[in-house]
């Protein structure tokens, strides 16, 4: 193959202009190649991070599921026991508070973080759960003939409770943190309108927390 030098022609600018454009193209494509390599490098690093994140997620989910799976059978058996007691007219646990005809029985769950309660009178019975971690949990059983509010205090800061329902009433608190207070028929409408407040007081009578008694 013979390489012959090209002719030089005066006034010929095409070669030069084309060269200028092509040099720009080469510079541009070199830049794009560098960008592409950089993107590829990032991309190749990404799967490793994704795999690591997925593994950690699996460990967390797996751990949570296994812990929950371990707790569920216990919780289920506790619920069965409570349901069985209620079905047979038995109390679910020890009596922790009483007021008038009402008696409050509770049984804390060792696995669910809940406290099952049972409110019983001679005529009727009601049941539910408090969240054991709540500093103050309140529930009520209200009818046209009156009712009761009751709950559980789980805070060392609370020394006593005061119910504000038009007038201020002292709420006796048991050593185990449970309380119950009878509601007179005239007080029912205030509770029904959400006007009743339960005020938690500290040892020096300072207000620790104000809690609106839930509407029935």
């Amino acid at each position: 193959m013979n390489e012959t030098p090209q002719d030089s022609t005066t006034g010929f600018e095409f070669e030069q202009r084309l060269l200028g454009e092509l040099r720009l193209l080469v510079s541009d494509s070199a830049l794009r190649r560098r960008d592409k390599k950089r993107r590829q490098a990032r991309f190749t690093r990404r799967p490793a991070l994704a795999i690591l994140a997925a593994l950690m997620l699996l460990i967390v989910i797996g751990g949570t599921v296994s812990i929950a799976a371990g707790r569920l059978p216990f919780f289920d058996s506790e619920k069965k026991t409570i349901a069985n007691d209620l079905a047979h007219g038995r109390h679910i646990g020890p009596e922790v508070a009483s007021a008038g005809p009402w008696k409050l029985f509770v049984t804390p769950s060792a696995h669910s973080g809940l406290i099952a309660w049972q409110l019983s009178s001679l005529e009727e019975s009601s049941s539910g759960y408090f969240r054991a971690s709540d500093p103050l949990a309140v529930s009520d059983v209200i009818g046209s003939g009156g009712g009761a509010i009751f709950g559980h205090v789980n805070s060392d800061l609370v020394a006593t409770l005061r119910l504000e329902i038009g007038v201020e009433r002292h709420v006796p608190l048991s050593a185990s943190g449970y309380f119950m207070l009878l509601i007179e028929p005239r007080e029912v409408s205030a509770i029904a309108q959400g006007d009743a407040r339960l005020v938690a007081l500290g040892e020096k009578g300072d207000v620790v927390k104000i809690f609106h008694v839930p509407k029935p």
Partner: protein
Amino acid sequence: MDNNSRSNEQLHRIATDPDAFESFYRSHFGRVVDFVARRCASPEDVADIVADVFVEAIRSAERFDPSRGAPFAWLLGIASNLMSSSWRAQRRRRALVVVLLGRELLANDDYTWLEDRIDAARLAPVAERALGHLSDLERSVVELVDIEGLSTVEAASTLGIRPASVRMRLTRARRRLRRDLDVAGEKTLSLALSQRGKSS
């Protein structure tokens, strides 16, 4: 490092190094223009195809395989493909989106210069007519081997076909050319082809 190795290394760098590209471009520009001018009728077409040849070279420099031929043969292969009839339609479509159009770079002086190159590259009218009767592939084989001086192996890799196919098509093309030139009374050209056929 021998000249071939240097040339191959330079070729791999033309896509990323503007200076390497300039050196490569200046080494081959003139012969690429002449090769293209032989097949094109207008300066615009020559400019477009020459521009496309180098754009394609930049795009495919990383795929260049030195075992398949020298860089110049590789460039001629790109040019042959761009000028073949099957590529013309594609080129028209590509023109809509092509990065660079050679004709946009042409000034008045360039038209004159390219017309001169086309005239200089043109074979005798009778030879042009005879070449025009060949298929695109046969014409490319004749141009690469008999005019540009590539070996049949280099022409084969340039055109992407087997060397045996190149030899077969070359023999057939020369036979047809001789017949057409004999009919036209061009005994000198016909004899030259006969001698080439015997020597290769």
